[in-house]
């Protein structure tokens, strides 16, 4: 299941495709393809435990696209940029380690940005991408929905990664849902300032 998403305020030559796999059994193979810089595995492969919602992941995608358009990428391509955009600090190696797929990742979010104006990817399509993913990702494909994402979010890890322990704006909130909503806002804000 590969969902195509149209983001507001991005050039129409770009299209964004997202898939969500649970209980992935070959994370170490996928991870090794990234390390080997295998061009046919140029995806943002994200450890889903570090993602809160569609909004959260799409904010990272949007940021990466604006960074690429501005000519300010700090990593090899838009897909590695997306992984780093989930971080709120500038340590690239750490961002890959924390937010990217690792050999022991269980649940994996995959993002592919296709650019029809880009020689490298112009012959790739949604269909070819979907076929390639289904062939190589061994896991259960589920919907890229807030409900599914919420099942795998590791909140205590996110609190630590984004240094939210002791944030007064959270301590005052007693309702759990409201608290999580607010954490999401704080994390997206922190991501927005990354690298600036």
């Amino acid at each position, binding site marked *: 299941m590969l969902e195509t998403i149209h*983001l*507001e*305020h*991005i*050039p*129409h030559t770009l299209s964004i495709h997202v898939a969500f796999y649970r209980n992935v059994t070959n994370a170490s193979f996928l991870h090794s393809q990234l390390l080997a810089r295998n061009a046919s595995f140029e995806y943002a492969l994200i450890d889903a435990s570090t993602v809160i919602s569609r*909004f959260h992941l*799409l*904010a990272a995608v*949007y*940021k990466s696209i*604006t960074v690429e*358009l*501005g000519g*300010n990428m700090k990593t090899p391509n838009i897909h590695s940029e997306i992984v780093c955009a989930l971080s709120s600090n500038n340590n690239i190696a750490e961002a890959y380690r924390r937010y990217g797929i690792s050999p022991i990742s269980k649940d994996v979010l995959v993002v592919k940005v296709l650019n029809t104006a880009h020689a490298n990817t112009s012959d790739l399509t949604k269909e070819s991408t979907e076929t390639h993913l289904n062939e190589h990702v061994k896991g259960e494909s589920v919907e890229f929905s807030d409900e599914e994402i919420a099942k795998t979010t590791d909140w205590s890890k996110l609190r630590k990664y984004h240094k*939210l322990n002791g*944030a*007064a*704006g*959270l*301590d*005052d*909130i007693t*309702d759990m849902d*409201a608290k999580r*909503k*607010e954490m999401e*806002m*704080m994390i*997206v*804000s*922190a991501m*927005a*300032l990354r690298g*600036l």
Partner: protein
Amino acid sequence: MTTLLPLPVPATPADEVEAGAQSHQFPLPQTLNYPTTTPPTLITQGAEGRLYKTTYLLPSIPCALKHRPSKPYRHPILDQRLTRHRILSEARILQKCRREGVPVPALYAVDEGTGVLIMEWIAGAPVRVPVNEYLRKRKADGLREAATKEDGEELVGLMRRIGRAVGRLHKVGIVHGDLTTSNMMLRPWDKGKAPVNGHKADGEGNGLLDGEIVIIDFGLASQGTQDEDRAVDLYVLERAFGSTHPRAEGLFEVVLDAYRGEFKTANIVLKKLEDVRMRGRKRSMLG
């Protein structure tokens, strides 16, 4: 996370607001030239920047987009630096406030290269609007004299919420620089939901003044804990309040009372405020 939103209420009187069609006389930031489901609306056009209502990521998520265009008369390198500095300063302050529990719009995205800051859209109207509406109704109801503390919980409660919001802002080390009732929004509370920031509806009234105070426009804000700066912040608000809502001027002490409760050294700030007022008065006598 989305609800149906009321139409945006302009912060400046209607005649100062550019019509949608006119907005395109000005160069749009590049991001607004890319396709979106609904066209952006120009909300205000100031000397330093323009504020648009548009969407962030998805058609269902409204946002406020502030654009600080480059100034052709400034040296390009200086211009870039200034724009970058101002956008980043505003973005950092928004982030800090939100983290520390000061009610402000959440920061969504920053593109300092093109001078763009994208933040959460705050529903409702600038506090100035409902307060004036309330005072107008009150007058129409035959209450001719100025509003006082005995006026009832509705207006007094709102003033208290303003004082608390400003107190909280100062507590976390931010000075706003341009506090007015136009730079605070009154955001309606979600129905049936307890307000997040610890305020509760203290009025029965007709609901005109219900809602949460959200402070906006940190374009002139700075980080600092100087009591003098905080006092000037309060003085600016006091003066703005008096001239925007002369019939409720006497209620300003409620704002200050609530402010006092927010942090330990608030008393020192209020003491300084007296000096600042004195200087202000001397200046106007001389001028």
